[in-house]
């Protein structure tokens, strides 16, 4: 958009220059064509010196006129160019500012969407991580409970097997005699009653 405006301004400036040059040439040609038209005027015989002086004077006047017109055109062209530059600059500034604002707004919007998406992703990841952690902890707890339950239900069998495997046939009952007698002592009264009633 900006570059289109700049190109249009340059084209307008070139056209103005071309028109100015054409106008100047046209004026020169007009003067040149107008000179023969004055021929029908009463013919005045001039001597050569007077004719030369007149010619010189006319040429000087013509050149002065050309210079004046050229200066005026240059001034107009300068003013026009200046105004055109100002206009182009203003338009360019406005366009760039507008584009920048739109760009900024778009960037802000994109940034907002990106932030929102990132926040959603983070939330989802946190939830998934929490869920995963909870699932793992639950699985570990379930496995632990299962093993504990297995041990609990088969504890007697496990311990019996362990004792047989560990002790084998190397049980020293002589060393246990005191413990066995203490066990009997602990239940002496109950055993006495049981034996008295069990005859």
């Amino acid at each position, binding site marked *: 958009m900006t570059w289109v405006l700049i190109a249009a301004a340059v084209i307008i400036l070139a056209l103005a220059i071309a028109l100015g040059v054409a106008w100047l040439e046209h004026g020169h040609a007009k003067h040149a064509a107008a000179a023969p038209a004055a021929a029908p005027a009463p013919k005045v015989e001039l001597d050569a010196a007077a004719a030369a002086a007149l010619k010189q004077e006319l040429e000087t006047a013509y050149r002065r006129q050309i210079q004046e017109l050229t200066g005026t055109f240059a001034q107009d062209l300068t003013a026009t160019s200046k105004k055109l530059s100002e206009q182009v600059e203003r338009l360019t500034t406005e366009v760039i500012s507008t584009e920048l604002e739109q760009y900024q707004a778009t960037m802000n919007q994109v940034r907002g969407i990106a932030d929102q998406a990132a926040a959603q992703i983070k939330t989802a990841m946190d939830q998934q991580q929490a869920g995963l952690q909870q699932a793992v902890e639950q699985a570990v707890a379930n496995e*632990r409970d299962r*093993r*504990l339950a297995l*041990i*609990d239900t088969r*504890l*007697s069998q496990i*311990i*019996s*097997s362990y*004792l*047989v495997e560990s*002790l*084998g*046939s190397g*049980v020293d*009952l*002589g060393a*246990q*005699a005191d*413990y*066995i*007698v203490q*066990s*009997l*002592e*602990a*239940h*002496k009264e*109950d*055993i*006495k009653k*049981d*034996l*008295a*009633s*069990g*005859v």
Partner: protein
Amino acid sequence: MEFKVPADIQTPEQLQAAVYEVERYADWLRETGVRREVGATNLPDEPAMAPETLAAVKAWQARKKVTAESLSQLAAALRAYKAPVIHLVLADIAPPALRQRLSAWIRANCHPAALVALSADSTIGGGVVIRTANRLYDESFRHRLVSNRDALAKAVSDVR
């Protein structure tokens, strides 16, 4: 007078063996008596007796003369003997010294004529399982470990 089983007979198996041996000895006396009456010379060998059976015969001999008939009475008395039985399960077969110690303790502290039935179960690990006609007292190592399952479960659950 009430017949008392001698202290040497401590287990139901010994009592049963004593009945068998006394009856066999009574039969031997009868057979040798008949053979002698007919003049036979090839008399059968005298059957052997376990020390505790011999102790029972000697105790019986203090009351009656030992004859085939009296020994049959002794066998009948032993068979009819009703003694309370306490069952002890140990982790291994009890040696004689331990068997005598346990029997002596029970007769001194619980019942003077109780018989002790001993058996072995290696799965108890150690200690003793006491069983009477009415109750069971488990003082085995296995029972101690199993009954303390909460501590075991805590130890297992504490393992990370």
